[in-house]
């Protein structure tokens, strides 16, 4: 006995240790089962004898082994006990000999462990309360043609009344609808097996279900819903007007408009609409046969009107196999502005639907005709994705409505609200809307439109509307250098598609990107790289243009300078050489009396001597630069007189014969010089010529005199110097004869003038040597064409041909040599 007490004490101490070691909650007595309930399902045609009961316990568990027992007592089974071995399993099934219909039953649960024993409340009730029958079967719906708004529902009870008396519940809905309509229990809570559904819509497919339960209130469980009984109600004539509307499309460009008269079936079509009867303006009624295979809400395009003008009246009647609907009419005004629009149209997405709100039109301000009252609204929406349009009608008291169409998320819709004034279409108000906005699906593409040395203009393309998944709230432009990666961000309004960066560094690589944002997210474009220019495009152009302008101005200055200083330049670089053709040779005939004129005061004192070497081609300018001062000195002396009669021109760049010694001194052979060059006489204009007469000069020039004798009309000095025009014939006695001689010699060329130009001076009387020259030689200074010209001249002047040999150039030399 003492041993037993010791073991018991030890056991209690062990339990106390468990409690004190922090496992107190795990070592409590068993929890009291609560909320005990039982159910017995129907098997075959009876309620099963397996009764399953469940109960709740608190969440705390226990580490101590707990025995839970389920007890069931009824009239036939005195006490059935079921031991639940799994302590966490709060349910158990008791198998009875038979389900105790119409008898009381007692159910309770006992939990027991070493720390105690707990019994739940006894659930004492009629056993039928636990019965859950199968749903009614053979549920069928029957339509009767004479009752288009009714369906008869029949079913079979799942179990006989002797076991369980049942009540029923019926629910139904339209096909495709998610909302069930239940028949009030007062109408079906009876022992019935059929029921007639009333006030249904004709020609509509309905789904019906039935369930049952023990008849006593609060007893038993509702069975599951039966299988669907689907049936369409019979057809009836349309009870409402068809939904008539119009839409206008731009076709073949913006100038062509097509109005489509659209019509939906009446809301209470009560059957399949087979024909629409249409009447436009005052035309007779026409029929449009409807061949529809898809949705019933699909609008039928009744008429197309090209370029609608004026007021349009349309009337439509819908017909099915039973009858026809009331008439719908639509009046399209010429100008919608006389029917005022709604105010403050707004939208918002609400629980997956698009809610549209507006305010009534301001009729007084709009000046609506008083005879047209606001009757209804038409809410129209057009998809930005595919342009699909749909509409719905609202009554005049409606100021907010959900769009009843199948709108898609992330798709742009244009929502329009049209007020309808006694069938007249009022002015619409349109707003864009999204059922659900999302982040942009496509980023914008950015590029550089203008690139300077320290600025750049960036341009990005707007995301196409069909690819927009929400309203762009702003653009954010990022740019940074390749090395620093110091990102600069600029937030720009949603309607901005370009930006001019102005504080860039020249010759620097930049990366840029743009982010388009909606309220739900953003999309960023790929990085775009650009390098700023080293010089701005204007700078290079400025330099080039400046240089060109400078050059042009320089040229202009030179030109102006040349223009204003032409005389001096010409006199300096291109001394005027009188045209020999225009010179008149004095006809020095033997009986010619030279009139000694007194020297003029302004007679050329300073004589320039131009020496032209015909053969070596040296420029006269170069020689003149070196030898002009010297020659001037020489020419100023009378020793260098060429002895040309009255000509004072110095056309020859060479010195006169008298100066030949000087030429020979320069290394040139006289013979060679004479053979290769035409030596012109040096003309010395001095007072020394005064008083000269041709006769005196002829004394020293015998060979020429002989020739002169053969051609007495061309007597002149021995000089081959061509006579210059400025040798004023009027001043000399021989001027008349010279003029006659030179008239055919119009072949004088300016080229010859250039080479043989000499300053013209008023000459005095020719020198003795000149007077001895009987032959006038024409001047062809080294021109290869001289022979031809000479031949031509000769042909033109036979007289000259006689006097001048075939090679008159050589003749000149020959004729000059004795000098």
């Amino acid at each position, binding site marked *: 006995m003492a041993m037993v007490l010791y073991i018991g004490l030890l056991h209690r101490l062990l339990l106390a240790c468990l409690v004190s070691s922090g496992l107190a909650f795990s070592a409590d007595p068993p929890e009291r089962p609560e909320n005990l309930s039982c159910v017995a399902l129907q098997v075959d045609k009876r309620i099963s004898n397996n009764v399953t009961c469940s109960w709740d316990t608190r969440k705390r568990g226990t580490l101590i082994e707990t025995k839970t027992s389920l007890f069931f007592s009824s009239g*036939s089974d005195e006490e059935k006990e079921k031991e639940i071995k799994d302590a966490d399993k709060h349910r158990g099934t008791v198998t009875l000999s*038979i389900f105790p219909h*119409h*008898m009381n039953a007692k159910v309770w649960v006992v939990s027991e462990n070493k720390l105690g024993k707990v019994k739940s409340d006894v659930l004492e009730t009629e056993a039928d309360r636990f019965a859950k029958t199968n749903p009614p079967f053979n549920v069928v719906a029957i339509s009767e043609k004479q009752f288009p708004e009714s369906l008869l529902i029949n079913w079979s009870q799942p179990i006989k009344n*002797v076991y369980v008396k049942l009540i029923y519940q019926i629910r139904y809905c339209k096909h495709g609808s998610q909302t069930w309509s239940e028949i009030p229990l007062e109408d079906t809570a009876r022992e019935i097996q059929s029921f007639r559904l009333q006030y249904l819509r004709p020609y509509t497919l309905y789904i019906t279900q039935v369930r049952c339960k023990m*008849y006593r209130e609060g007893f038993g469980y509702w069975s599951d819903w039966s299988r669907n009984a689907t049936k369409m109600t019979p057809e009836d004539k349309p009870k409402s007007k068809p939904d008539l509307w119009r839409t206008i499309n731009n076709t073949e460009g913006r100038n062509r408009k097509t109005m489509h008269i659209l019509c939906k079936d009446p809301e209470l079509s009560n059957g399949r609409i087979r024909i629409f009867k249409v009447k436009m303006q005052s035309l007779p009624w026409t029929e449009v046969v409807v061949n529809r295979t898809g949705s019933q809400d699909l609008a039928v395009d009744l008429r197309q009107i090209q370029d609608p003008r004026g007021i349009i009246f349309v009337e439509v009647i819908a017909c099915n196999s039973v009858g026809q609907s009331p008439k719908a009419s639509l009046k399209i005004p010429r100008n919608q502005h006389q029917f005022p629009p709604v105010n403050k149209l707004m939208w918002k997405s609400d629980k997956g639907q698009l809610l549209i709100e507006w305010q009534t039109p301001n009729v007084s301000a709009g000046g609506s005709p008083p005879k047209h009252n606001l009757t209804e609204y038409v809410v129209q929406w057009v998809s930005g994705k595919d342009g699909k349009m749909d509409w719905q009608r609202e009554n005049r008291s409606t100021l907010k409505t959900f769009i009843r169409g199948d709108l898609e998320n992330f798709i742009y819709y244009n929502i329009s609200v049209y007020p309808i004034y006694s069938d007249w279409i009022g002015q619409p108000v349109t707003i864009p809307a999204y059922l659900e906005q999302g982040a942009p699906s496509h980023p914008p593409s950015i590029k550089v439109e203008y690139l300077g040395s320290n600025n750049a203009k960036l341009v990005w393309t707007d995301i196409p509307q069909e690819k927009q998944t929400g309203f762009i709230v702003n653009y954010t432009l990022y740019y940074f250098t390749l090395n620093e990666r110091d990102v600069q961000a600029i937030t720009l309004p949603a309607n901005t598609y370009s930006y001019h960066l102005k504080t860039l560094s020249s010759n620097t690589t930049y990366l840029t990107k743009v982010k388009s944002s909606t309220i739900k997210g953003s999309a960023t474009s790929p990085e775009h790289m650009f390098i700023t220019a080293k010089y701005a495009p204007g700078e290079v152009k400025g330099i080039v243009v400046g240089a060109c302008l400078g050059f042009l101005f320089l040229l202009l200055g030179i030109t102006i300078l040349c223009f204003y200083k032409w005389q001096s330049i010409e006199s300096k670089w291109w001394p005027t050489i009188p045209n020999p053709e225009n010179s008149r040779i004095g006809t020095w005939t033997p009986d010619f009396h030279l009139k000694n004129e007194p020297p003029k005061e302004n007679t050329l004192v300073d004589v320039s001597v131009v020496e032209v070497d015909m053969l070596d081609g040296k420029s006269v300018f170069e020689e003149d630069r070196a030898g002009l001062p010297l020659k001037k000195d020489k020419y100023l002396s009378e020793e260098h007189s060429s002895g040309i009669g009255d000509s004072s021109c110095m056309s020859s760049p060479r010195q006169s014969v008298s100066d030949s010694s000087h030429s020979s001194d320069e290394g040139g052979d006289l013979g060679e010089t004479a053979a290769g060059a035409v030596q012109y006489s040096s003309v010395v204009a001095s007072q020394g010529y005064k008083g000269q007469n041709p006769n005196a000069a002829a004394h020293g020039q015998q060979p020429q005199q002989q020739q002169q004798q053969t051609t007495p009309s061309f007597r002149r000095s021995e000089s081959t110097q061509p006579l210059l025009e400025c040798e004023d014939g009027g001043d000399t006695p021989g001027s008349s004869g010279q003029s006659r001689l030179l008239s055919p010699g119009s072949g004088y060329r300016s080229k010859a003038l250039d080479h043989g130009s000499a300053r013209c001076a008023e000459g005095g009387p020719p020198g003795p040597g000149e007077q001895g020259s009987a032959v006038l030689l024409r001047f062809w200074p080294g021109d290869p064409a001289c022979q031809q010209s000479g031949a031509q001249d000769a042909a033109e002047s036979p007289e000259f041909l006689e006097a001048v040999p075939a090679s008159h150039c050589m003749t000149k030399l020959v004729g000059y040599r004795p000098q």
Partner: protein
Amino acid sequence: MIGHMYFPLLLQPTKSFPSALLSLLLVMAVHSSRTVSLSRSQNCGTPLQQSLKLTRLIHKESVELIRTYKASQGALSELFCKSSSSEVPQPKISGLEPSERLLSVSSVLRSFLPHLRRVLEQQTDLQSPSSRLLTELSNVRNRSASLASVIGRLYQDLFPNLPAPEPPAGGPTQMPPPQNIFQQKVYGCVVLRRFKDFLLNVARELRTLKSRVCRTPPANTLLF
């Protein structure tokens, strides 16, 4: 309670004829209304309706059981089911008063239970274990036992001052001697048929009792 008050009056000796006549009329009136008064004082109809429903259920099952029994006994079942047997209780309900009749119901019902058990035992030997007849027989027998307990409880509820129903007088129910198979078949069929008739009589008796006890039933009770 009223009955309790006037029972002593019934036991008092009559002193004069008028007073005795008045007392007799009073006792008769009280006695005739005693049952009703008791029923109304209790939860009217619940035990009685349970008994009635259960009786109908067993009757329905017995009808099915007889059909099943005949189907399982062969072609001559219709013939031998018409025969009678003296060992099987009669389905009659005796007594004049409701208490007596209800007591008779309980007594006869209890006397049928051994016969039903005997038939089940005999058919268990004759039928396969999965036979539907055995199941139905078992169900009828079990429900009959339940009905006996329900009737006893009802009797106690309706007549709490009367002694509780006791086992049939004369000891245990007299059972038939050992029988051959045919006799077993005949015996079983007679038992089931009589039991069905008895249930029909019980249902009628309970309905009569119900009409007495619950003259003004609640609306919800009428509905169902």
